[in-house]
């Protein structure tokens, strides 16, 4: 709760500094504010406090995921000064929007009430619509914002309609009350309830980018400024998954017959479509967008395997996916800055003059592909184990087939970097700016590879 307040205050301060033209103060405020929020967030550990009539629940699940969101946001801000280096204006609007959307994300993990869920999602999404179009001179960025806004608000409509129907059936927005209703009426669930749940699932599937509601992802991810894409692909996705998990886990665990089949269909479609579509991409940014779709499919499995330690598995998977994605996008930012293109060809020969960056990209790609001993493998394997314990062997087999396919496209940038000669032989200028930060996230990824057990047993 206090983390939300902290971040909101930081965002407002950033706006003020921008208004008074004090550009130099903005980033220091953020770099103090985010760690502060992180610490404030941790203070509620093991206390499970409820705020505002159970609108907001500060349990360990919330704190773990909010900690992750704050940490990811901090990592992304690390890249902000280098990414926006050539921009002269203070950029307070962009930074403040990122922080406000982060507030939305923090609410989504903690809701105890469907109204709060909707509020969180809208706070996150509205800021993201604007951020997607923040590169005003670029038509693709405008296109991305437009597409994202139209499809996103459509999905919000679904979500809202679902919430309304659920309210009609149960007479409450509160997750606990809905759970009580479910337990009492398990035998005869009214159609209104099931339809409401399905509509909510559709709305959330859209937000996480699960097939068949993934069509916005490639275009929006590709068109948005890369820093914002990174933010969407990590904070946006993790927050939406935490919300999805909390919704299903706290209210609908007992009526899994209502949602399980459709989620399995979503997961299978997402894994297959994401992985196979990624095979045919020439732009690495678009490939990463489809890889994000595929990973959404894997994370859906954590929701399907609800019982057991699925929350820990989801957390581990979110950590592994986010850090690796940030690393990959950071390298992409650097390559783009130097070559002006996202295509796989612009990676040619990178290893020769920028070995550190190439190493980081390799680690990120191998982790995303799930090659041991990196954290991506631990996450996948824990996920598969928890799914298989719930008797989802066919689903796991499909997921593993998806992983096999993914090895191919994740290796393409690696191969281009190490084994294809580039035309130019001078080191990238941009590498000097990005090198330290990229190395930092890559090392973080390696360190995390040794402690998946700690992460999974956290909640």
């Amino acid at each position, binding site marked *: 709760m206090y983390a939300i307040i902290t971040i909101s205050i930081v965002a407002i301060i950033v706006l003020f500094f921008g208004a008074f033209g004090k550009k130099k103060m903005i980033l220091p405020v953020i770099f103090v504010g985010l760690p502060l929020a992180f610490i404030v967030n941790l203070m509620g550990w093991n206390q499970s406090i409820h705020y505002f009539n159970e609108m907001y629940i500060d349990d360990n699940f919330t704190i773990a995921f909010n900690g992750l969101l704050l940490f990811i946001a901090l990592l992304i801000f690390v890249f902000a000064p280098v990414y926006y280096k050539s921009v002269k204006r203070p950029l307070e609007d962009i930074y403040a929007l990122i922080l406000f959307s982060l507030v939305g994300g923090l609410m989504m993990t903690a809701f105890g009430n469907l109204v709060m869920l909707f509020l969180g999602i809208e706070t996150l999404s509205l800021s993201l619509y604007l951020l997607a179009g923040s590169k005003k001179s670029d038509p693709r960025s405008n296109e991305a914002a437009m597409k994202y806004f139209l499809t996103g608000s459509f999905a919000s409509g679904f979500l809202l309609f679902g919430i309304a129907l659920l309210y009609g059936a149960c007479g409450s927005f509160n997750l606990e009350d809905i759970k009580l209703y479910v337990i009492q009426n398990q035998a005869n669930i009214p159609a209104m309830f099931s339809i409401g749940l399905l509509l909510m699932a559709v709305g959330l599937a859209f937000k996480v980018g699960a097939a068949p509601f993934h069509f916005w992802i490639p275009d929006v991810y590709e068109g948005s400024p890369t820093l914002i894409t990174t933010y969407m692909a990590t904070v946006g996705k993790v927050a939406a998954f935490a919300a999805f998990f909390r919704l299903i886990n706290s209210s609908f665990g007992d009526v899994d017959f209502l949602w399980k089949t459709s989620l399995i269909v979503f997961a299978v479609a997402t894994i297959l479509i994401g992985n196979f579509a990624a095979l045919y991409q020439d732009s690495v940014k678009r490939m990463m967008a489809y890889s994000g779709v595929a990973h959404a499919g894997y994370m859906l499995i954590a929701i399907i395997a609800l019982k057991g330690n699925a929350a820990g598995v989801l957390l581990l998977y979110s950590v592994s996916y986010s850090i690796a994605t940030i690393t990959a996008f950071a390298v992409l930012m650097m390559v783009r800055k130097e070559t002006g293109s996202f295509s796989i060809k612009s990676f040619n020969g990178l290893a020769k003059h920028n070995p550190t960056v190439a190493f980081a990209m390799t680690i990120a790609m*191998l982790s995303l592909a799930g*090659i*041991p*001993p990196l954290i991506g*493998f*631990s996450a996948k*394997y*824990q996920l*598969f*184990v928890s799914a*298989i*314990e719930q008797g989802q*062997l066919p689903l*796991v*087999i499909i997921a*593993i*087939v998806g*992983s*096999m396919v993914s*090895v*191919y496209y994740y*290796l393409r940038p690696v*191969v281009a970097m*190490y*084994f*294809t000669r580039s035309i130019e032989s001078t080191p990238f200028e941009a590498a000097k700016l990005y090198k330290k930060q990229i190395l930092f996230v890559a090392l973080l990824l390696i360190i995390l590879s*040794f*402690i*998946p*057990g*700690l992460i*999974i*047993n956290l909640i």
Partner: protein
Amino acid sequence: MIIALLLILPLFASIFLFTGKTVQQSKNFALLASLAVFVISLVGGYELIVAPEKALFSNVDLESILGVNLLFKIDAISIIFVILTSLLVPIIIASTDKKEHRTPHFFALIMLMQTALIGVFAASDMILFYIFWELALIPIFFITARWGGENARKISIKFLIYTVVGSFFMLIAILYLYTLTPAPHSFSFDSFYQLKLSYSQQIPLFLAFFLAFAIKIPLFPFHSWQVETYNASPVQGSMLLAGIMLKMGLYGIVRFLLPLCSDVVANGSLIFLPLILFGVIYGAVIAISQPHLKKLIAFASLSHVGIIALGLLSNSRYGIEGGILQMFSHGVNVVGFFLCYYMIVKRTKTDKISELGGIASVAPRFATIFMIIVLANVALPLTNSFVGEFLILLGLFTYNKILAIIAGLTIILVAVYMLKMYQKIMFGEKKASTENFTDLTFSEIMLFVPIIIAIFAVGIYPSFVLQLLQSVVK
């Protein structure tokens, strides 16, 4: 303690070498580290010979941190392969020539490979096994792609995808086995061995494991990556692949297929043994007409490992013992063979058999050593292969006489292509490329010494290995 040293030493050496600057220092350091590992593995081997019933054991319960249980166990079967690995890696490192422009990373990757290989043979937890199994791929992929010959890039990707697909099948099998273990579920080998699997459970398990191992070994018809990869890889990479990495697949058969799917192996052998046997003959026949020496070695290796797989799956005690022994021998022999190839290519810059000839007259020391290695490959009595192949054929004979007779044909075929090759390369007229062939230097001979010792030691006195095995093969 021994296990920890065996794993940590090469790993740290590898990390250290990644920061290395000069090539010669890196090579010396890697050689020193790998020799230390060899000594440690011999100590482990000695402990097991003294008390063969026991096994070296190491269990560090870090599940709450690492997410995997660090459970290692080296028994009599494992130690053979650990020793094989630690024997061959120093030879492979030492064989690297100064002129080849290797960077320190090359040696770092080899040491990383050694860590992974020892991990595979020492692991006693299925997930740990899988992690090392996959980890071993990464260094060999980079070695082949970075330092390989023509088309190495394309071929190494094909190789990587081929084997990753295979190991994903193994992952499915592992997860399936995990669900069958009684709650709380476990990934340790012991808990798998205690399972009483029904026939219908064994069939999918067998298929998944067999596919993974057959791709790795490789067995016909999954061999298409092998010849290309050997050919494209630098010779050190080929040695790692043929000498040690293939043994991972065979080791997998011994560890999992035989104890877990014993009924399927017993009943179904007649379905897949002929297929493997076809691969054996196929490899040998193609080897006869190979114009390139390296490809000849690759096809010969395909044929030899097929025979080993036949022995292991023949469902008889002799076959299994012989197979395990032969795995060790094949590793030694094929590395020796590749070394001879390397010596020739280094001097003549060609591996076309038709362009070679008359080497024996100018290089008598090389001729002798090459002869010993060729004869070991032919499985002449007193060499290591003889014992293994004899036991394999004996085991096969008790299982099915027709198969054994056809398999026996390969002994003739091996002799044909090996001796024909030797005759063409070493005798006859000197060609332009062999005009200035110099004999082996002292340091080159030193490379062959451990191989020749291993050939004769196992060939003359195989019983100390077999005694070790008898306690484990049941």
